[in-house]
């Protein structure tokens, strides 16, 4: 121990601390200043940035004792006063510009920006990109962050703030829906007050750690825990033998052990868990757990996994390593190719990619009877709380009502927080020790453990007539599902059904093989399989355009799905197909944005420029016959406020705004009176999984209809109470008007309660029925459509690729909150850019090479292009106010737009992702037109 004296946020502090404390740990654990977040502990992500004597540093690797005598400023030190806080201009402008989504990186971005503005009161965009280069954000795509900083700079200079980039939408018919209102969490997120799982602390809390597999594939012969158990401070060491209930979890198939028993099947597999009085002890005793393994042959290639001689990942699975063969059959494929004048046949590869949400997984288990918890409770930032409850209960052999899941704020998810992470483990450990147990994954553990985006191999053959009309698409896809099923079945079904692209194709034959391997598990990731097939489909479309001599935009127009079209799964599109509109809007902007008149490509010195275009569509909702339901409850309070309750996740995408806006619209009350409680299985009805771009549609509808039925109930009550016909009662801005008089809604709530009527309504909304693949019925109840164009610059001397501009047209039915929608689009585009240019998770014979964030580059602010976004609102009848899914569509076609642009710029077609500048340069120099190797092939 050593003494540390310093000033934190203006307050002199003197503490005895362990000598090994980092500044981040000191701030969070010793001072309780949890606004400073830890994203990587590698000085990579920058979100732990604080100011030491005015200088921004990464507090995660800054020894606390070095700060002795210094003045430290954290996010908590920026705002003044008590609520309502007097915000720093940066905090205010971050909210105003929609630069806050999940909020986990927000303190780091704001502190880094604060240091910038302190030294440079009017920074240029380049200055901002230079200063924030190593402060990552995975949600916003940075464009709103840049605007917010510029706006704050203007405010501090006494100038007028910049107007937020709110896209033009049509909402004249509505009051609250269509307005860019802020999230109820926004102030908490910019001030550091918002609490994520790791920010919770309970008295007597223990710390858990997980022992993971030593091999990607091995039989477990024995596990010995005695040595670990005997260490002072260790409260529990658990293995599969200590799982009282079902030792298998999974969202589709129950194949994933909570704690491995027979085998380990990938490096992220959990073998034992430990709870100790400190995280340090828990981490150290992992080395004392002895596991005897018999290593087995490693299955690391999805195509080879299908060969009969391959080792088996799951010996008992009936179809060997083939998890599922997914088929689309439509029309007559042979006839289709016979009709074609031109056939393009190519092979594409996409890489495994990582969500890199900035908050690593964390869960806390609190036993029944401790700290006022009536049942065993798990605090976790999860995308599927009710399924977590059921899976935890099954593993612990408890009835579901004996387990409660409390959803905390989520620091980004993107599909990566759907499967079980530490939920079962903390519940087991809490139950055994009788104490709260927190398990937070390090970034490195998060990388190794959680499911990723499927790497795919896609062979695709596209036929068309001379006039450009598509006649047939045949495709074969191999998806690397990794060691466990997770959502592979669903994800790769989406890759398969969307493999014709958003086009009229009369004949299709598509086969997809979802394969088990010993690689990291693959599961849900924004785009859900469509990201991969869109790369192949849209590349082939451009090859076809070039072969036929038809403009790429025109070829897409000729074939674009429209109302009346039938998809490859046999679904008749009856409404809400905005693809042609999006093509037109994007084409107009491309024209306007090309200096000196539109060209697909041009040169300036050694720089080559090119535009590329790509289209996409993406289902809203689960589809395929799965019942798609969400419950929501709306309650009125005597103070005139309302609460919407639903167990649905807001991982930064803005669901809290959507449900509050829908409810406020129906009840005709000001938005500010609406608050939202999400994801508590004891208090909120099931909203279903936050996946498949479904929440706006399904839970939005549930909130809308719950609010409407509360309105009806209050109307009925008033009609009786005031003795007026219900038709003469109307809701207006928080008042109920009748017969020339008015009463506050809060007063009505009070009166109802006094009469023994609870002023609340619960509604379980069921989305329109869908049909399974292969039946020819409607697989989905809505589709969103998009066109994107990318302008790239290729340095022909280095092969470096820069995306200068992305133009997007997204048909999302109805913009509920335009600024929040813009944030989804900008963030989606930059994530798509990462998929094209920077990201690949590499494993070598099942062992992750990418075990550090330093080895996984997501786009930084320097990659952020100019984004011009158009909203197309082709209403869908059953969506709330006509809305359909938003979360995924913006991220799907960015990658092929970029690779198509590269092909225009330098004449080289990229078949493998991410684009490798090394190989691209060599292709340019050698005049090669085809590039089949990617970054991970540099060996």
């Amino acid at each position, binding site marked *: 121990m*050593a003494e540390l004296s310093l000033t934190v946020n203006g307050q002199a502090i003197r503490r005895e601390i*362990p*000598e*090994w404390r980092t500044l981040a740990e000191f701030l969070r654990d010793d001072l309780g200043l949890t606004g400073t977040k830890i994203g990587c*502990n*590698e*000085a990579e992500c*920058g979100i732990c*940035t604080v100011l030491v004597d005015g*200088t*921004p*540093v*990464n507090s995660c*690797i*800054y*020894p606390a*004792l*070095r700060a*002795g005598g210094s003045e430290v400023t954290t996010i908590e030190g920026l705002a003044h006063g008590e609520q309502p806080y007097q915000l720093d201009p940066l905090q205010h402008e971050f909210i105003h510009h929609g630069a806050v989504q999940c909020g986990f990186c927000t303190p780091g971005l704001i502190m*880094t920006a604060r*240091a910038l503005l302190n030294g440079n009161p009017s920074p240029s965009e380049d200055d901002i990109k*230079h*200063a*924030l*280069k*190593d*402060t990552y954000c995975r949600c916003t795509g940075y464009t709103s962050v840049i605007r917010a900083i510029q706006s704050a700079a203007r405010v501090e200079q006494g100038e007028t703030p910049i107007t937020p980039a709110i896209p033009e939408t049509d909402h004249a018919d509505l009051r609250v829906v269509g307005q860019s209102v802020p999230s109820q969490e926004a102030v908490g997120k910019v001030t550091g007050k918002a609490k994520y799982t790791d920010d919770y602390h309970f008295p007597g809390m223990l710390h858990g750690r997980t022992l993971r597999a030593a091999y990607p594939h091995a039989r477990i012969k024995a596990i010995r825990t005695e040595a670990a158990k005997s260490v002072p401070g260790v409260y529990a060491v658990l293995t599969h033998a200590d799982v009282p209930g079902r030792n298998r979890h999974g969202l589709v198939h129950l194949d994933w052990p909570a704690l491995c028993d027979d085998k380990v099947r990938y490096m992220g597999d959990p073998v034992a868990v430990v709870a100790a009085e400190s*995280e*340090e002890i828990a*981490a*150290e005793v992992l*080395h004392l757990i002895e596991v005897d393994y018999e290593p087995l042959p490693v299955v690391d290639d999805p195509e080879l996994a299908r060969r009969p001689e391959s080792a088996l990942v799951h010996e008992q699975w009936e179809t060997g390593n083939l998890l599922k063969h997914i088929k689309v059959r439509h029309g007559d494929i042979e006839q289709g190719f016979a009709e074609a004048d031109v056939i393009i046949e190519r092979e594409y590869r996409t890489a495994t990619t990582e969500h890199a949400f900035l908050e690593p997984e964390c869960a806390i288990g609190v036993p029944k009877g401790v700290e006022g918890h009536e049942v065993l409770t798990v605090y976790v930032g999860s995308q599927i709380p009710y399924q977590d409850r059921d899976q935890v209960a099954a593993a612990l052999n408890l009835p579901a009502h004996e387990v409660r899941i409390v959803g905390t704020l989520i620091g980004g998810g993107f599909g990566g927080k759907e499967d079980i992470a530490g939920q079962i483990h903390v519940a087991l450990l809490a139950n055994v020790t009788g104490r709260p147990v927190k398990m937070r994954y*390090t970034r490195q553990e998060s990388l190794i453990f959680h499911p990723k985006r499927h790497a795919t191999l896609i062979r695709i053959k596209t036929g068309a007539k001379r006039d450009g009309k598509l006649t047939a698409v045949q495709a074969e896809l191999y998806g690397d599902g990794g060691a466990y099923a997770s959502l592979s079945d669903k994800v790769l079904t989406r890759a398969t059904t969307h493999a014709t692209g958003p086009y009229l194709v009369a004949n299709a034959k598509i086969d997809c093989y979802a394969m088990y391997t010993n690689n990291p598990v693959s599961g849900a990731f924004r785009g859900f399989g469509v990201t991969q097939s869109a790369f192949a489909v849209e590349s082939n479309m451009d090859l076809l355009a070039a072969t036929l001599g038809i403009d790429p935009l025109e070829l897409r127009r000729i074939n674009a799905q429209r109302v009346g079209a039938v998809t490859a799964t046999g679904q008749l599109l009856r409404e809400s197909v905005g693809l042609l509109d999006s093509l037109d809007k994007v084409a107009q902007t491309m024209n306007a944005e090309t200096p000196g008149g539109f060209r697909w490509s041009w040169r300036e010195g050694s720089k080559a420029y090119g535009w590329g275009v790509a289209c996409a569509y993406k289902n809203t909702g689960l589809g395929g016959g799965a019942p798609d339901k969400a419950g929501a409850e709306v309650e009125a309070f005597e103070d005139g406020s309302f609460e919407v309750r639903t167990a649905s996740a807001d991982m930064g995408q803005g669901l809290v705004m959507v449900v509050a806006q829908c409810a406020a619209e129906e009840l005709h009350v000001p938005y500010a009176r609406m608050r939202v409680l999400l994801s508590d299985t004891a208090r909120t009805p099931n909203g279903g999984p936050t996946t498949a771009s479904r929440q706006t549609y399904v839970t939005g509808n549930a909130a809308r209809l719950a609010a409407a039925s509360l309105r009806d109930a209050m109307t009925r009550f008033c009609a009786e109470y005031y003795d007026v016909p219900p038709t003469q009662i109307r809701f207006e801005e928080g008042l109920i008007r009748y017969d020339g008089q008015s009463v506050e809604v809060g007063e009505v709530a009070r009166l109802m309660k006094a009469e023994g009527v609870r002023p609340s309504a619960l509604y379980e909304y069921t989305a329109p029925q869908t049909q399974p693949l292969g039946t020819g019925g409607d697989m989905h109840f809505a589709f969103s459509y998009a066109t994107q164009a990318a302008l790239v610059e290729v340095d022909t*001397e*280095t*092969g*470096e690729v820069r995306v200068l501009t992305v133009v997007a047209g997204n048909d999302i039915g109805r913009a509920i909150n335009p600024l929040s929608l813009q944030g989804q689009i900008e963030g989606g585009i930059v994530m798509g850019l990462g998929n094209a*240019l*920077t*990201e*690949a998770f*590499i494993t070598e014979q099942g062992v992750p*090479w990418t075990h*550090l964030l*330093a*080895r996984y*580059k997501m786009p930084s602010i320097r*990659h952020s292009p100019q984004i011009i976004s158009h909203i197309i609102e082709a209403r869908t009848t059953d969506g709330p106010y006509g809305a359909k899914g938003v979360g995924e569509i913006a991220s799907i076609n960015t990658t092929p737009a970029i690779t198509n642009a590269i092909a225009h710029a330098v004449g080289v077609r990229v078949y493998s992702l*991410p684009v*490798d*500048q*090394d*190989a691209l*340069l*060599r292709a340019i*120099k050698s005049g090669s037109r085809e590039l089949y190797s990617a*970054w*991970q092939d*540099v*060996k």
Partner: protein
Amino acid sequence: MKLWSKYHIPTSVEEALALLASYQGQARLVAGGTDLLIEMQQASHVLTTLIDVTKIPELRVQELDGDSLILGAGVTHSQIVQNSVLQTRATCLVESCGVVGGPQVRNVATIGGNVAHALPAADGTISLITLGAQAEVASSNGRRWYDLHDLFLGAGKSLVDSTRQMITRFRVPLSRHREASAFERIMRPQGVALPVLGCAARVRLDDQGRFEEVSLCLAPVAPTPIRAEAVEKWLVGRPAQEASILEGARLARQTLHPRTSKYRATAAYREEMIELLTRRSLSAALERAEGSVL
């Protein structure tokens, strides 16, 4: 997470050396820690003692000494970038320190740490070599100046034994009349943030418009940063023009033999980059030298 056990903050070089000696090889010096602490994290449960050298005043000096600048080993990358003398008279050092990491890293990472770590691709290091810098190394036996280049024994291997010695300061020769330098670097957007290639060039022109002196350091081309001596020799006495530079860059490509590094660069790409960055850095240095009237 517990990465070290004891933490000392000496305030003089002598105190730091005494502490090092007392731990008999079990202690490490730490400055910015942006390399060391990450390495310790990956080595898992190796706990050691850290001796923090950031509070030693001597290590933070930046002072002119004739046509040289004395730079304490504890000067941070950010301080180098902001130093107006270095900006005009050791431009390649400023350029190379300006592209290391982001501001949060540059604000703590020191030039001494960069050199002591002896990575073959260290940006600041190759500029120091190009400028002909010297380093002072202190040990219990006293202090001694070395040519910077001589400190590099291999990849990550330094002549400085960090368990008993420390780099205290650098002497950086400053550009004089018709002399200037430039730094160029190429990265890739994927994987580890280590350069594919870095190149620092320094040129001095004579009154007849010829190259009087040329210094060129590239890395990673070999386990240690290397000077492109054949190119330097060839250029001296030639007309200070683009044509000479193009030829010199071709010669660099012919005489240097880089390797492929996994997930970073192929040898073929690096060969292209050797020619390109040699050309770009020499051209930039030449343009500056022509305008330099110190």
